[in-house]
């Protein structure tokens, strides 16, 4: 996992005298104090993080948290007041104007919230915009632009004008324009925020599909945690100019750094953050199958713990089946006094087995329909735990509880 983009101690101060404000920042004065005394606004304060090659890195925060400023410092649409931004180890804050233009033409491109298409150009010309600026010959750039349009499913619309397209289609063009230059880094500034929810989900899937076809380093800005959780490999959360937490979606949901981060989960749908493996519990009575564990012994065990059902696995924890008191009793009836019986005969057939990577979304139905807690197994078929209806409901409800 190599580092593609590295941000170190980056500050951005807007206002009349950034240098003076910087001194105050270093002295430890607060953002509000500085604004009151100098009129300067600290947009981003001491931001540091590394973005790995090939990941979708989400920067999330409420409006005014500095995330849009942050992303613009990654291609120097905004110059950082202090600190460094390195791409492949090269500090872009030290680049000359010419080097910067070259960098923007080759290695880093951007998708905008308002699409920012040129209304006087056709879809094809818009898509070829970056290539045209770089001086790529017409034949080649049109060919590459057409290929980019086809990759986002707009191959047939190349001669349309932007005002003839719907919002979702416009942003596909914005995406194609950014992909046409074949950049190493794709910056997406609230790229899907202006779209209605259905189209937005569709575009998120589109991004993930494109990413699976050709892995790029994507920096994705959003204010929407649901979106961040869906597309992000890792998420950085910004609060009033500071990066307060960086981590995988799971890490952040599991252990939020502070109340601000926690407050994001008020409305979040955790069902696609967590998988079956995350919520499975090991509190079921388990029966280890070995010589001498009879059907009667299993029945005794369940009765002793007062449980209606239990899980059977072998010594390697490989899941074998689920038994219930009823099914065991049914078996015992048919046995002679000295007969030990086979426990397999008591396995229930209406209990499904769930893979631990299954998202919670897909669990609702099997868990609801199964009469007993549903067993979860890993990729090798090993028993990881069970999920009962109560646990599932508790997990889904968890966000509200925590926010309250």
């Amino acid at each position, binding site marked *: 996992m190599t580092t593609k983009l590295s941000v170190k101690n980056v500050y951005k101060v807007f206002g009349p005298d950034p240098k003076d404000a910087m001194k105050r920042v270093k002295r430890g004065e607060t953002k509000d104090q500085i604004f009151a005394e100098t009129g300067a606004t600290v947009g981003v304060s001491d931001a540091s993080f590394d973005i790995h090659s090939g990941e979708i890195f989400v920067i999330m925060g409420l409006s005014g948290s500095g995330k849009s400023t942050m992303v*613009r410092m990654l*291609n120097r*649409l905004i110059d950082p007041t202090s600190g460094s931004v390195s791409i492949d180890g090269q500090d872009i804050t030290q680049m000359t104007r010419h080097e910067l*233009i*070259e*960098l*923007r*033409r*080759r290695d*880093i*491109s*951007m998708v*905008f*919230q*308002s*699409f*920012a*298409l*040129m*209304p*006087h*150009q056709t879809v094809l010309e818009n898509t070829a*915009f*970056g290539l*045209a*600026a*770089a001086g790529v010959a017409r034949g080649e750039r049109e060919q590459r632009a057409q290929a980019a349009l086809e990759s986002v499913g707009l191959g047939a619309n190349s001669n349309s*004008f932007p005002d003839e397209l719907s919002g979702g289609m416009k942003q596909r063009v914005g995406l194609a*324009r950014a992909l046409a*230059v074949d950049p190493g880094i794709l*910056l997406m500034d609230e790229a899907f925020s202006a779209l209605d929810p259905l189209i937005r989900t569709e575009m998120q899937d589109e991004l993930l599909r494109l990413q699976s076809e050709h892995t790029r380093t994507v920096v994705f800005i959003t204010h929407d945690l649901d979106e961040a959780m869906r597309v992000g490999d890792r998420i950085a959360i910004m609060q009033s100019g500071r990066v307060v937490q960086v981590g995988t979606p799971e890490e952040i949901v599991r252990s939020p750094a502070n109340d601000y981060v926690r407050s994001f989960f008020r409305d979040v749908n955790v069902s696609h953050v967590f998988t079956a493996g995350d919520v499975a519990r090991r509190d079921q009575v388990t029966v280890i199958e070995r010589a001498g564990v009879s059907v009667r012994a299993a029945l005794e065990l369940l009765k002793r713990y007062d449980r209606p059902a239990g899980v059977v696995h072998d010594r390697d924890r490989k899941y074998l089946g689920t038994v219930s008191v009823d099914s065991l009793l049914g078996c015992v009836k048919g046995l002679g006094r000295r007969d030990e019986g086979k426990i397999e005969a008591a396995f229930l057939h209406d209990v499904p087995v769930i893979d631990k990577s299954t998202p919670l979304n897909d669990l609702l139905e099997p868990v609801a329909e199964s009469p007993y807690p549903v067993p979860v197994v890993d990729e090798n078929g090993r028993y990881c735990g069970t999920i009962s209806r109560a646990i599932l409901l508790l997990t889904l409800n968890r966000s509200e509880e925590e926010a309250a």
Partner: protein
Amino acid sequence: MMHLLADSSGLWNTLGSDLTIDLHIGEGFTAIVNFMQAHFDLFFTIVAAIISFVADHLTTFFNWLPAPVIFIALALLALWRVSWQFALFVLVALYVVIGMDLWPETMDTLGLVLAATLAALGVGLPLGVLMAKSDAVRAVARPILDFMQTLPAFVYLIPAVIFFGTGRVPGVIATVIFSMPPAVRLMNIGIRHVPVENVEAGKAFGCNGLQLLWRVELPLALPSIMAGINQTIMLALSMVVIASMIGAGGLGDPVLAGIQQLRLGIGFQGGLGVVILAIILDRLTQSFGDRKRGDGLFTRLKALFTRSASDDGNTHSKKAA
């Protein structure tokens, strides 16, 4: 009472002679003009040569062109850019001009307006770009533009005559100065109002300064720029008429004659000629500011001739689009 009044007015007079300070603004301006005339003679000669070259050739050209050629050219332009109805209006209006026996004057005015507009845009549009790009330039240019626009049009004529004598050249120069401000202002506003994200997109995809201007800012500012050009042409037309007072010629002559000799008919005919020219120029230049992508000239001609009712053609093309 009378005594009191007489008394107070006497007091005012005494006070007035002490308090009123003559700033000698008029004399100062005269001095500047005299100084410029004495020391920038070569400059004025060159400007005059260029202006007279362009203006003379344009007016000669329009007068040399046979009237039917101009009829057809303007009507086709009207059909292409506006509508067949407007093309029809152009033909009738130009026929009215011929009927008033004002064709040469109209062509003179057209030439003068175009010459003045070209010069005004040649200076004004780049100035507008500078103004949009630099707040310092804007701070300086703004009051000058206000001054240029509010100074009564006639006042321009005086220095113009001093520098360039009478005739076409001072007329065109006064017109250039009078008509330039809207082109500068609307270019400035147009560029400054280009959406931020479009400018950012231009930069983010590696445009240098010139590419940004050419590929993003000017195209997106086009409606505003065209509105500025349209206003410049309209102001030029009104000033060219006034400039006939210093011998610029054209449609202003019959108007002036109408005033001086109280000949209502002549004056009205001159005025009508100006109105006709104004409507044609206005509608045509305005049409270039629309961002709508109209059908080509051929499509329109075809629609006109293949269908007797060209309204059908219009609705058809709308449905197709």
